[in-house]
């Protein structure tokens, strides 16, 4: 199991700006180790964001997303106290879900 995500959801105008920082190696599969062997790709493939349990956005990611991925999006109609849940799955089938409250 990987480290928890850092999620910040700030109420702003009619919605909430959500910033997510995930902890993941995001290995591209292009690099080689000291012995010249290719390090296999290891990256997040899918991300799902939900507001109070209802999915509002999904994303598919490739290897080109930077290490320890950051993403930001704005959820309409979210107000203080609402729950934002973000989960990801990587290409090894590992997964993680974290939750934050809109402030």
């Amino acid at each position, binding site marked *: 199991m990987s480290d928890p995500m850092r999620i910040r959801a700030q109420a702003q105008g009619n919605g909430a700006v959500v910033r997510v920082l995930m902890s993941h190696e995001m290995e591209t599969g*292009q690099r*080689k180790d000291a012995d010249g062997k290719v390090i296999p790709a290891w990256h997040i493939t*899918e991300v799902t964001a939900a507001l109070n349990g209802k999915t509002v956005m999904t994303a598919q990611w490739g290897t080109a997303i*930077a290490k320890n991925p950051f993403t930001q999006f*704005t959820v*309409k109609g979210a107000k203080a106290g609402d729950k934002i849940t973000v989960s990801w799955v990587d290409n090894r089938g590992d997964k993680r879900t974290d939750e934050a409250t809109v402030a």
Partner: protein
Amino acid sequence: MQTRREMLACSAAVAAALIAAGVLPAQAQSAWNKAAFDAKAVEDVLKALGAAKPVESNDVTLTAPDIAENGAVVPISAASALPDVKRLVFLIEKNPTTLAGSFELTDAVETNVATRVKMAQTSNVYAVAMLGDGRTLYAKKEVKVTLGGCGG
């Protein structure tokens, strides 16, 4: 002692059984569009995503640095004021994997997504918006990379 081949066959069978039993989310695994991520040319990626012929448009805004000193972390964002954008896609023309990420939006989120990508070398970056009415619009920008973010 099992050979590697038997072992692989065995684990595949176990995985299939787990999917059948609903333990592993088969749908979540298969939703990842491998064809699109494997495609090299910008047009091929968009075709694999089922996009219409892309048209350059001022209605899509791509924010990216002019010069990225470190190709391993390049902040980019895309936004559009148009209604009914179903999907925002980031493409990096000269990366080993052209498609960086694809964000499927719903009515509940604004058409404004930011992330950070890796860039192997100086290249055009595309932000592509796929609309509900079938149109595909894009904005592009060249980002100069001083130090590549892939390989080493």
